[in-house]
């Protein structure tokens, strides 16, 4: 018995002691030690018995066995007590026995085992107890069913609170605790370049520098990409990641099959890929011999070297990993502006976050000296490098939302519990006289307690079952509706701990507010006629309702702030139209489309095909569209510009677009002309810029000016600015306004095409797009086919999601408050009816009686408002995201509307009891 740890033994002993408490004292003291010994023998026996199935193992597990033994003990303890009680009553004293049984069980003695006089031996005791238990249960059920108006709200509130709480605690658990399935995930950091507070990716030479500085146990870079994978019968466009050597080692992930074997130099074989577990299952039918097979990725042969485990979802959507090796050109200093690499590093053991930060900052500081022509630009923009814990980088948005939602759910749960408590207390005060009468007539305290316990367990059980069902239904429904930021947690599993916690809260509430007060009430002194403690209780009820209102006010304030944020987000000028626009992507593999001419020709053909559809008004292609989260930017030089100290080199985001692009997306042209078909490689190089770029760099007119991207080239290629268009919001709706530069595709030739189609009043089907593409090139899949409207909805889905739930919680909380105020006031009115009657008899007007009750309700509301506003103010101010967008003035505007809503709601709740009080007829009350 000494083979398991002392903590486990202590827990076990505690459980058994708890169970033994059900036995009568003498029994307990005699057998306690022996039974402990017995239990430990049983445990040893169970651990020596082999278990074959999972179920057996679960049943034989130590905790399960201890629990079973404890329950068995407790049940027998109760049985022992009951049999002694029965034995203690004199078998001949039929009268008193019947009386007490009748009083306590609500039924006259029909027990099958009531003493049979012509049988000399004592009857079996167990059936008596079970009969009592069933009687009690039936009685409890009857008494609950008899008051659906009181109990339905209690059960519904507890169930709703429980469901919300379980659901969002589970979500929070998944997001907040250990969301990355990597070994020692807290050592993993992302390394990114910094421009002041703004963070961007690394360039290959930057990555090389950080690698050389070797401040990390390991460091690897990756860049997302999209590749066409040819399977036996079709071509799949899948998300890929090109990763440098050491990527999997840094994450600490071992292949499930094979090993990646990434090339480390240019000379090594680079044609290897690692595939995800999902891809292995869907595209290769879980073939165990997949390692070594050759597949065609972007029309080139690759050998599958590894299948990664299903836990590896990094980058999030990647299903194939390709090696990434840089050549000398890519690592040259002039490539430093090309910031597209994401880097992940594992901290050296013993190196702190601060030390590592300092290290990457030093590395970045050295870089500035390496690039004299950009040095001033970099230093003026506060260029440096920094690290962020990987889980924070990946999940910061998800975290704050999970926090917000689970705190809102917790608040709702508290309100639900408090409100259920108030309702139960009201019910109790009604039952007090009934219980006292029963006790007076000789009901056994034990039976009364059991019955109260049973009743409240029944309430809690009902609420628990309903809550669990609701939580399961919601989890199934919400899993698919989660916004992309939380999408990693689509498999929304209910957390057992959260479930146990909420169920525990429900039980505690019912016992604390239901069973205990009734129990105490039934035992209180008879002569006091129930006056005792009434004042204290009524004050407690008021305090509880006030608190409830305060919490509801906090929730309402939160909902108000979120609503304000949401309306602000959705009223932002996008700068482009999303209605009736559909977009899709095509990626041209460089093996089939090696040069710009062939890519331009393909884009031309595709667009002219699409434009020939009757419903299409405009169609255009670009390297990327707004809102798709990709970014490409750099610096450019206006003609005649000279580097001046303290003046940054002009920078912008670059977009390569076809003619008709601005018309397709509905981007307004402000000045100059649009791109046209004649802007070809043979014509003069042209460029369009947006309003932000024009205002920033050419405040006195941009059209006709010239810029270049490479000052060192010979001859310098100057591009003329031919037009200025309206600014569009690109990645984050809320981000900084970055200048945009638009280059014509006919003077470029992009490989990664995003096509936008504007067809007013009709939708474009995916089949049609695929069919058109198949006519042009059967091996090219179209992917990411999506209406722009949907893309936009996705961009605002997280704020919308937050808003929806917090307001739903707030609305529910308000309804709870209504109920709370109503029930407390009606109880007060009922209890004070004689006094009110007296007042009316002495000349109080109906109006003043009504106002008294109304004033009572408004007083509670007022205190709740003050308290809730204070707490809400502190909370909202401390929330990073909301502080930025909610000004002081708008906060008070929210407070004013919340106060209005609350006061109106509570006045509404108070009207019915107030009218009832006012209708008191003095004669009836004086007579009673």
């Amino acid at each position, binding site marked *: 018995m000494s083979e398991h740890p002392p903590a486990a033994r202590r827990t076990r002993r505690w459980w058994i002691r708890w169970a033994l408490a059900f036995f009568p004292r003498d029994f307990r003291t005699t057998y306690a030690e022996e039974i402990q*010994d*017995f239990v430990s023998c049983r445990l040893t026996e169970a651990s020596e018995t082999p278990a074959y199935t999972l179920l057996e193992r679960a049943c034989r597990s130590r905790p399960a066995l201890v629990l079973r033994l404890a329950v*068995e003990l407790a049940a*027998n303890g109760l049985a022992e007590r009951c049999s002694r009680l029965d034995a203690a009553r004199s078998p001949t004293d039929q009268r008193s026995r019947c009386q007490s049984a009748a009083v306590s069980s609500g039924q006259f003695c029909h027990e099958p085992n009531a003493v049979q006089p012509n049988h000399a*031996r004592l009857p079996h005791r167990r059936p008596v107890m079970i009969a009592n238990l069933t009687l009690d249960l039936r009685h409890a059920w009857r008494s609950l069913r008899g008051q659906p108006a009181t109990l339905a709200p209690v059960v519904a509130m507890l169930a709703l609170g429980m469901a919300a709480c379980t659901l969002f605690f589970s979500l929070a658990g998944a997001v907040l605790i250990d969301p990355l399935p990597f070994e020692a995930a807290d050592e993993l950091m992302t390394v990114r370049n910094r421009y002041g507070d703004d963070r961007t990716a690394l360039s290959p030479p930057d990555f090389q520098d950080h690698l050389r500085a070797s401040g990390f146990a390991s460091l690897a870079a990756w860049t997302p990409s999209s590749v066409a994978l040819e399977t036996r019968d079709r071509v799949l466009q899948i998300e890929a990641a090109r990763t440098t050597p050491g990527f999997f080692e840094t994450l600490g992930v071992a292949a499930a099959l094979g090993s990646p074997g990434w090339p480390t130099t240019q000379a090594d074989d680079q044609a290897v890929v690692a595939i995800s577990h999902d891809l292995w299952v869907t595209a290769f039918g879980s073939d165990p011999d997949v390692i070594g097979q050759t597949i065609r990725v972007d029309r080139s042969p690759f050998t599958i070297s590894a299948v990664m485990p299903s836990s590896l979802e990094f980058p999030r959507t990647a299903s194939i990993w390709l090696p990434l090796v840089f050549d000398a050109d890519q690592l040259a200093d002039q490539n430093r502006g090309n910031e597209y690499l994401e880097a992940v590093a594992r901290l050296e053991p013993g190196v702190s976050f601060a030390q590592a930060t300092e290290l990457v900052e030093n590395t970045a500081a050295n870089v500035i000296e390496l690039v004299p022509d950009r040095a001033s630009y970099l230093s003026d923009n506060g260029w440096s490098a920094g690290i962020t814990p990987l889980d924070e980088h990946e999940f910061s948005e998800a975290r704050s939302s999970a926090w917000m939602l689970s705190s809102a759910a917790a608040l709702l749960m508290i309100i639900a519990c408090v409100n259920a408590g108030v309702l139960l207390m009201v019910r109790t005060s009604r039952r007090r006289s009934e219980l006292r009468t029963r006790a007076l007539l000789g009901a056994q305290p034990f039976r009364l307690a059991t019955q109260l316990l049973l009743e409240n367990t029944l309430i809690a059980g009902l609420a628990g079952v309903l809550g669990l069902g609701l939580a399961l239904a919601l989890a199934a429904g919400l899993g698919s509706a989660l916004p992309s930021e939380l999408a990693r947690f689509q498999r929304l599993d209910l957390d057992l701990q959260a479930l146990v916690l909420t169920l525990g809260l429900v039980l505690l509430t019912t016992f604390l507010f239901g069973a205990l007060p009734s129990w105490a009430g039934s035992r209180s002194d008879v002569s006091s006629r129930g006056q005792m403690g009434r004042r204290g209780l009524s004050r407690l009820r008021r305090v509880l309702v006030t608190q409830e209102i305060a919490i509801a006010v906090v929730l309402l304030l939160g909902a108000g702030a979120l609503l304000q944020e949401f309306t602000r987000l959705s009223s932002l000028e996008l700068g482009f139209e999303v209605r009736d626009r559909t977009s899709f992507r095509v990626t041209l593999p460089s093996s089939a489309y090696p040069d710009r001419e062939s890519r331009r020709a393909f884009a031309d053909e595709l667009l002219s095909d699409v434009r020939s559809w009757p419903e299409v008004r405009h169609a255009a292609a670009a390297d990327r569209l707004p809102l798709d989260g990709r970014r490409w930017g750099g610096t450019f030089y206006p003609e005649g510009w000279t580097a001046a100290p303290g003046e940054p080199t002009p920078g912008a985001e670059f977009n390569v677009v076809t003619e008709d692009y601005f018309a397709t997306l509905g981007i307004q042209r402000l000045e100059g002309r649009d791109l046209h078909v004649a802007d070809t490689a043979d014509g003069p190089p042209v460029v369009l810029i947006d309003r932000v770029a024009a205002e920033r760099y050419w405040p006195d007119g941009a059209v006709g000016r010239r810029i270049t991207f490479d000052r060192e080239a010979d001859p310098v290629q100057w591009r003329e600015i031919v037009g200025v268009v309206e600014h569009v919001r690109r990645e984050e709706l809320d981000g900084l306004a970055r200048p945009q530069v638009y280059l014509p595709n006919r003077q470029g030739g992009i490989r990664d095409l995003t096509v936008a189609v504007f067809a007013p009043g009709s939708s474009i089907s995916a089949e049609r797009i695929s069919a058109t593409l198949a006519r042009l090139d059967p091996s090219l899949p179209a992917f990411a086919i999506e209406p722009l409207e949907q893309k936009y909805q996705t961009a605002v889905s997280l704020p919308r999601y937050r808003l929806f739930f917090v307001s739903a919680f707030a609305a529910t909380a308000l309804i709870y408050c209504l109920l709370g105020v109503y029930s407390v006031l009606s109880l007060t009115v009922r209890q004070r009816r004689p006094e009110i009657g007296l007042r009316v008899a002495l000349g109080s007007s109906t109006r003043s009686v009504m106002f008294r009750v109304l004033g009572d309700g408004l007083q509670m509301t007022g205190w709740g408002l003050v308290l809730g506003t204070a707490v809400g103010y502190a909370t909202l101010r401390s929330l990073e995201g909301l502080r930025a967008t909610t000004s002081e003035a708008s906060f008070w505007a929210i407070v004013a509307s919340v106060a209005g809503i609350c006061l109106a709601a509570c006045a509404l709740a108070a009207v019915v009891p107030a009218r009832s009080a006012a209708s008191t007829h003095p004669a009836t009350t004086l007579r009673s």
Partner: protein
Amino acid sequence: MTPPLRPVDLLVLLTLEQGARHGYGIRQDLLGISDGAVALDAGNLYRCLNRLQRQGLLEREAAGNDDDPRRRNYRLTEHGRDQARSELRRLERLLANRAARALLAEAGG
């Protein structure tokens, strides 16, 4: 007149016929003689022992010199022995009954 013994009580008395046993030992013996059909756990077993003790059918020995000082042995009293014997006789008589024999033969055939 003494009440007839319950089947479980009789089984417990039978396990003690060979000598004193402690609680867990009784459980193991019961499992043995009933082919695993009678598996008493702590609550039931000790209530049964307590009952038999009160009826004077067995006695609880003082702490033995067993390796575990918590263990107590239970020993059959003379009264218990008599009771078990008379119960078994009753069962024997039942078995000797013609109807019972016919019933058993039917099942066996």
